[in-house]
């Protein structure tokens, strides 16, 4: 891998640009490398690994038992990526993608716009917001953020710590904190009791998977160290005397120093949406996801989505899906014919089938309760523009039937986070208020820049005479 330090070192154009260096992006790069095609990997972190293998080469916690075997398995992929013949620009923000496959990228406060013949979006997932009353108070953060601190800085929260929500990451993080010598005080588990009904039929397939045994052992270990309250159906956080009072049932509360929330992850949609790729409701994951085919190809020619960004399936599956999108890119770039592509894909598809077993059980079991996805009136829904659940509901009643009209009424989703923190909440809150399915509500339009860049960078982009005429009217 040729590690670049700034946009000035980029080539004029690339055959394949991969956005993201998590498992999907690294695996795609490894698969596509060495075929006499110019491949570029752009990633916003300082090193490869994405969220799951964050700081894989530099993590301060060297004891492998703390972060666990699944984390350290990322090292092999990171090594293969380091050996691959690709250009790699870390610390890079990809802020634009369009249907002409023009990519806007910023690094070190300078931007470049470069064309690609194929693009693979491997931008992964982000945590589903959990808009409770008090979720924006100081001392409340997401489990994913807590885990990022643990991986990159070796920091675990101390004092009275509450984890609340549902999903595998909540349990994994609790186990990691325990191994790091900082056991949380309490888990408030929000998985609805009724989810078991839907999940049970998938249980046999799940029990046959390698991660069933590991997962159950991990949960048992966590239960030995701390109290777990199951089936929590209501939750709110209030500031009280410099601490956080967490209330989960009438008269039942716990005073904490830190509260970490989590209820699963959803695909990062911003670049795919800004480019104009179609999205659709994914009932299994209970979220919107880009529409993709068996090769990860999106609705716009030349753009593919790999990994959790195309629908949540986990790190191992992400790497395999990264390889499949790369093989299709190699076919499109004239390196492989269809037979060659299919032959190289066969073992990856077989492995993907193995890793996908049991996924349905996790999806069904950890499907978040709808009332934890919609913002109650007294919770902040859009953090950037400070729009409450009450304001969303009022506007929906006034006739803003979808998220795009809501933006016009309330500016929600128009701040620096570009809807990352509020997009799912807005859709779910309108759905709840109108009594319709989130699928019918739809998702907000997302725009360039997918992440903020400075006006100065915009001002320095290439312009044509026609561009000038459109503004100066000469």
């Amino acid at each position, binding site marked *: 891998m040729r590690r670049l330090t700034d946009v000035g070192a980029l080539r004029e154009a690339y055959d394949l640009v991969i956005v993201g260096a998590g498992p999907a992006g690294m695996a795609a790069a490894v698969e596509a490398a060495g075929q006499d095609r110019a491949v570029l990997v752009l990633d916003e972190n300082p090193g490869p690994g994405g969220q799951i293998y964050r700081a894989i080469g530099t993590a301060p916690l060297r004891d492998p038992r703390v972060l666990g075997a699944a984390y350290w398995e990322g090292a092999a992929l990171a090594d293969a990526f380091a050996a691959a013949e690709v250009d790699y620009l870390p610390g890079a923000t990809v802020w*634009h993608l*369009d*249907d002409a496959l*023009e990519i*806007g990228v910023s690094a070190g406060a300078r931007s470049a*716009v470069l064309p690609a013949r194929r693009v693979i979006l491997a931008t992964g997932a982000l945590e589903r917001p959990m808009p409770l009353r008090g979720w924006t108070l100081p001392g409340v953060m997401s489990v994913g953020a807590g885990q990022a601190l643990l991986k990159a800085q070796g920091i675990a929260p101390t004092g009275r710590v509450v984890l609340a929500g549902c999903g595998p990451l909540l349990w994994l993080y609790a186990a990691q904190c325990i191994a790091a010598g900082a056991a949380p005080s309490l888990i408030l588990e929000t998985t609805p009791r009724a989810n078991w009904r839907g999940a049970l039929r998938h249980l046999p397939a799940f029990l046959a998977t390698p991660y069933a045994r590991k997962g159950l052992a991990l949960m048992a270990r966590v239960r030995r160290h701390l109290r777990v309250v199951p089936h929590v159906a209501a939750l709110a956080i209030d500031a009280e005397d410099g601490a956080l009072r967490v209330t989960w049932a009438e008269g039942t509360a716990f005073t904490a120093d830190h509260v970490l929330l989590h209820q699963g992850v959803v695909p990062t949609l911003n670049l795919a949406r800004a480019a*104009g790729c179609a999205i659709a409701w994914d009932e299994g994951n209970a979220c919107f996801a880009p529409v993709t085919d068996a090769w990860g190809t999106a609705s716009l020619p030349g753009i593919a989505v790999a990994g959790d960004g195309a629908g949540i399936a986990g790190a191992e599956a992400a790497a395999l899906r990264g390889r499949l999108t790369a093989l299709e890119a190699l076919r499109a770039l004239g390196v492989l014919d269809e037979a060659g592509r299919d032959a190289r894909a066969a073992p990856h598809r077989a492995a993907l089938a193995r890793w996908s077993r049991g996924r349905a059980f996790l999806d069904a079991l950890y499907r978040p309760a709808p009332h934890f996805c919609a913002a109650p009136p007294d919770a902040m829904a859009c953090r950037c523009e400070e729009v409450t659940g009450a304001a969303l509901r009022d*506007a929906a009643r*006034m*006739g*803003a*039937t*979808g*998220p*795009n*009209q809501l*933006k*016009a*009424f*309330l*500016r929600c989703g*128009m*701040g*620096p986070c*570009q809807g990352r923190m509020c997009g799912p909440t807005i859709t779910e809150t309108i759905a709840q208020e109108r009594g319709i399915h989130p699928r019918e509500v*739809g998702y907000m*339009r997302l*725009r*360039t*820049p997918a992440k*903020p*860049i*400075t*006006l*100065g960078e*915009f*001002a*320095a*982009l*290439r*312009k*044509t005479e*026609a*561009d*000038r005429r*459109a*503004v*100066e*009217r000469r």
Partner: protein
Amino acid sequence: MADAAIFDVAVIGGGVVGAAVARGLLGAGLSACILDEGDIAHRASRGNFALVWVQSKGLGMARYGAWTRASSDAWAAFAADLEAETGIDVAHRRPGGFNLCLSEQELETRRGALVRMHNQPGWIPYDWEVLDRAALAREFPDLGPEVVGGLFCPLDGHVNSLRLFRALHASFKAGGGAYRPEWPVTRIAPLSAGGFRIETPRGVVEAGKVVLAAGIANARLAPMVGLAAPVRPQRGQILVTEKAAPFLHYPIVTLRQTDEGSVMMGDSAEEAGLDERIGLGVLSVMAERAVRMFPRIAALNVVRTWAALRVMSQDGFPIYDQSEAAPGAFIATCHSGVTLAAAHGRLLAPMIARGALDADLAPFSARRFDVPQTA
């Protein structure tokens, strides 16, 4: 299908134009509904730049200059009414506005246009002036070195247009109006006994009067009631920065700081059909010009860009008409719906309620586009 709901007037289009007219009609004592499209539509009202602008309006039609001026004069009371009714402050400010020029040639071109505009027959004069760099620097301490001069008009101002949009809807609802989103109109049929039957996939409405305020879609709807709306989309693009401490106390025609702190830039015009995609090159030209005017804003983060479609007639002026073939059918279509919101609510709506447009709106009839047949 249930029986048609019956209103005195149905307004088609729930943007700033439609909502301002509909609210005015309620105020005149009529029962009114707004029939609107849904969450995804070509909505100029969601994309506008929020100026209440006078200084450059009217070259080619003196009456448009006067109409714009009248709206600008009515805006303060219009905003105060809205706030009293809804509690929403639309942040209307009228400190006067500037047009900053980055070359002597630009300044001369714009000055020349204003001189020609003010020399038109029938023009009602108002104050404006040319300012040199030194005079501008007194108003704008952060002015960039390339600004050579500019134009100033004390009548110009701006608002928070999203809050205006919400306030109009809140007022309409509070006044008993029926807002029906996701009711896209497919057919308007004049009834033999007078009035109109308006069909949508969601249901049917009957109304004594109908007002077409559907922007681009007016071109499709107008012929159904014997009117013409030769309008086309014209793409404009906008950049918005993160919020910053107040530094810009006047609106500039291409650049303004909102009451909430964001800096907005936008004054592009492209003929691109219904294509609402942005173009990085055009955005870059706007960003570059803004940075040359105020170098300090180069460090601000851009959080959003978009393109939206202006509703342009052939000469760029509004169209207001009542149908001769189907009396009671009115049309209101324009590109400066924010500037004209006060005129639409306080002047146009009462005329529609009375059933006749005032004679001095005759220059806005689409009949001006009829080319006389030559033998």
